[in-house]
C-alpha cells in the first residue's frame, strides 16, 4: 500500500534518529567491546521484459508482478550487549505507482544466559538447511530461494531454549507464540525441536515441528566433506499434511473461471515428502560447481501448470465477448497469478551452478541453470559481483524459458535484470 508523505517524513525522521543513535553507539563501542553496529546503503535497479502475448496480460495491471523498478535500502545491523538489531528502511518504486517507504525491524532479539541456560527471544530469522536451491527442512522461516535480487529476510517472533555440548546442540523453539493458524504458513504458531550433531566429516541436522495447519513435520539433513574439494549434502522432510495452491479443477464453467476467489484452490496432500541431494566441487583456481536435484511433494506438478495454461487461455479468449465484464477477466487472471508466490514451483527440480571467485581482485561470477524435470521449463541466470573495501557492485540477468505450459514458460516475464550498489560504513 502506498505510504503517505507524512508517514514517509516520519520514517525519514526515524532513520535519522537511528543513524545518530548508531553513531553515538559506535563511539561508545570503541570503549565497550560488546557493542557494534554497521550501516549499509543499498541501491537496486530492476528491469523486466514482459512475455509478448502472455495469457495473464489482462490481470497484470492489477498486480505488482514485474513492476518493481528500484529500491533504496538503509540497513542498520548490529548488537549492543545481548540485543541484536536488523532495521531496514526501504524506499521502493514500482512502475505506475508513487515511490513508497517503510521501516521494518527484520530482527530484534536478545540472546540471554539465565542460570547457565541459554535462551533467545524476540524477532529473528530462522531459515536454514544444508541445501542451496531448495531447502526441505526450512520449516520455520520458509524462505523462497533463488530470487534474482532478493530482499533481506524478515524474522519471525520466537522464543528458543538452546543447549550446546561439545559435538552437538538442541533447541526448543516456539515460533509466533500465541498464534494459532494464520493467513500464511510462516505466520502460524508452532513448536519445534531442532537437533544438531557434528560427527567426524559429517554435520547432521534434525527437526521436529508441530503446527495446527500441517500437523507433525519430521526432517533430517546431512552435509559431508569427504575430501579437500568435495562437499555432499542431502535433506529430507516428511509432513503429516502438505499445502499447495493449484488451479481450478478441469471442467470449470465460465462463471467459475471469472470468479477471482475461485481462481486457485488450496490442496492438502496427505503425507507429502520433500527431498534433495547435491554437492559442491571447488578447484584451486577458484571455480566451483554445485549440482542439486530435488523432489517437492507440495509443489504444483506438470498437470497443474497445464491446467493453468488452459484456463488462462480460456479467460483471455473471453475478453470482449458480449456479457463478459473485462474487469472480471482481469480480476480472475490476476488472482490466478498468486500460484507463483509459492516458494518452490518445481515438483522435480535440478540446479547446476558454476561459480568463480577471486578474493584478491574482489570479482566473482556465476552461471545458474535451473530446470524442471516435470514440465521442461528452465531458467538461466548469469550474475557478476565485485566487492571492494566498502563498496559492492552486483548485476544479474535471468532468462525464463521452456514450453508455454510449463511453470517458467507461463511466467509473465521473459527476462529480468538487476544492478545493485551497496556501501558499508
Amino acid at each position, binding site marked *: 500500500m502506498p505510504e503517505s508523505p507524512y508517514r514517509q517524513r516520519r520514517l525519514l525522521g526515524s532513520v535519522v534518529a537511528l543513524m545518530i543513535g548508531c553513531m553515538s553507539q559506535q563511539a561508545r563501542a570503541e570503549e565497550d567491546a560488546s557493542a557494534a553496529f554497521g550501516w549499509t546503503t543499498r541501491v537496486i535497479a530492476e528491469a523486466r521484459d514482459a512475455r509478448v502475448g502472455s495469457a495473464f496480460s489482462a490481470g497484470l495491471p492489477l498486480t505488482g508482478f514485474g513492476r518493481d523498478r528500484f529500491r533504496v535500502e538503509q540497513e542498520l545491523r548490529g548488537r549492543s550487549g545481548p540485543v541484536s538489531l536488523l532495521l531496514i528502511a526501504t524506499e521502493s518504486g514500482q512502475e505506475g505507482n508513487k515511490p513508497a517507504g517503510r521501516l521494518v525491524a527484520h530482527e530484534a532479539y536478545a540472546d540471554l544466559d539465565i542460570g547457565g541456560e541459554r535462551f533467545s527471544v524476540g524477532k*529473528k530469522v530462522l531459515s536454514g538447511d544444508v541445501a542451496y536451491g531448495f531447502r526441505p527442512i526450512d520449516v520455520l522461516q520458509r524462505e523462497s530461494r533463488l530470487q534474482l535480487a532478493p530482499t533481506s*529476510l524478515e524474522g519471525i517472533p520466537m522464543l528458543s531454549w538452546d543447549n550446546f555440548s561439545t559435538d552437538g546442540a538442541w533447541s526448543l523453539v516456539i515460533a509466533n507464540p500465541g498464534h494459532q493458524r494464520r493467513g500464511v504458513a510462516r505466520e502460524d504458531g508452532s513448536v519445534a525441536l531442532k537437533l544438531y550433531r557434528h560427527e567426524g566429516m559429517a554435520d547432521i541436522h534434525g527437526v521436529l515441528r508441530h503446527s495446527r495447519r500441517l500437523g507433525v513435520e519430521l526432517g533430517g539433513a546431512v552435509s559431508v*566433506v569427504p575430501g*579437500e574439494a568435495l562437499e555432499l549434502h542431502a535433506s529430507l522432510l516428511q509432513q503429516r499434511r502438505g499445502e499447495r495452491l493449484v488451479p481450478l479443477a478441469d471442467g470449470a464453467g465460465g462463471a467459475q473461471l471469472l470468479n477471482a476467489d475461485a481462481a486457485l484452490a488450496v490442496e492438502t496432500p496427505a503425507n507429502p515428502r520433500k527431498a534433495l541431494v547435491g554437492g559442491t566441487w571447488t578447484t584451486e583456481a*577458484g571455480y566451483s560447481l554445485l549440482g542439486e536435484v530435488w523432489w517437492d511433494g507440495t509443489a504444483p506438478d506438470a498437470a497443474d501448470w497445464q491446467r493453468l495454461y488452459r484456463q488462462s487461455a480460456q479467460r483471455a479468449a473471453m475478453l470482449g465477448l458480449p456479457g463478459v465484464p473485462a474487469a472480471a477477466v482481469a480480476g480472475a487472471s490476476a488472482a490466478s497469478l498468486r500460484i507463483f508466490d509459492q516458494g518452490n514451483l518445481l515438483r522435480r527440480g535440478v540446479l547446476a551452478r558454476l561459480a568463480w571467485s577471486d*578474493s584478491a581482485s574482489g570479482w566473482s561470477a556465476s552461471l545458474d541453470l535451473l530446470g524442471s524435470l516435470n514440465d521442461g521449463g528452465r531458467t538461466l541466470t548469469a550474475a557478476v559481483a565485485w566487492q571492494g573495501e566498502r563498496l559492492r557492485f552486483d548485476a544479474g540477468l535471468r532468462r525464463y524459458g521452456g514450453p508455454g505450459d510449463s511453470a517458467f514458460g507461463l511466467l509473465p516475464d521473459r527476462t529480468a535484470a538487476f544492478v545493485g550498489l551497496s556501501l558499508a560504513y
Partner: protein
Amino acid sequence: MFKRSAMVLLASISLGAAAADDAKVKALLKQADDYRLAIASGRVDTEVRSFKGDTLDKTRLYAVYLKPGRRSLVLFRTASERGQKMLMLGDDYWLMMPASQRPLRITAMQKLLGEASTGDIATMTWSEDYDGSVSGEETIDGQACLKLDLVGQRKGVSYPRIVLYLAKKDRHPVQAELYVASDKLAKLARFRMGEVGGRRQVTVMTLVDHLQKERSTEVHYLSRTDKSLSDDYFNPAFLVRADLPQ
C-alpha cells in the same frame, strides 16, 4: 649371525637418529610458534592489508580466538564483512553469513579461496600441523638461517608443504615458502619482528602472492590477549547466536 646383529644395530641407530631429528624439528617449530602466538588460548586482533602492486587495495580487520586442539574462531570486523564468522575445528570448517541462520560446512579448498585466506590468519602454529627435517642452512637478508622442509600432517592444512627458514641465533621465523596441493609455490611469507609487552614477537607477516602477480598482503598482529572463550563458542551450532565478543 654377526651380519644380522650389525644390521639390527644399524637400523636401531638410524631409527634413533630419525626420532631425534623429529624431536629436534618439533622443538624448533615450537620455538618458532612462540614468536607468533606465545599463548595457548586467547584472542589475536589482526589487520590484513592487501596490496595491488605498491597500492593499498583493501584493509580488513579480524578477531581470532584460539583454543588448544587446533580450534579457532575468526570474527570478521570490517564494515563490509561484519557479522561473518569462520570456525575451524581441526580439519573441519564452517562459515556463518550474517543473513543466514545455519553455518555452512565448507571444504578446505573453499577456506583457502576465502577473503584474505582466513586460514593464513587463523593458523598461528606450525608444530601441531607439520613435521619434516632440517635440510640445510641458508642466509636470508643477511641472517644465517636453518632451512626446514615441512610436510603437513593433516589433510586440511592450507599449505601441504612449507619450506621454513628460522634464524640460527634465536629460531625466530624469517621466511616461509608456502606450497598448495599441486605443489605450486602459492605465497612467500616474510616475518617482521618487534617488541610486544617486553617480548620479542612477530608483529607483521608479509605474504607475496606467487599465483597472482602484483598481489601481496600484510598481516599485522595488533594485539594478543589471553581473553578466552568457553567451549560452547567453538560448537558450530553456537555460531547462530549473536552473543560473541566483537
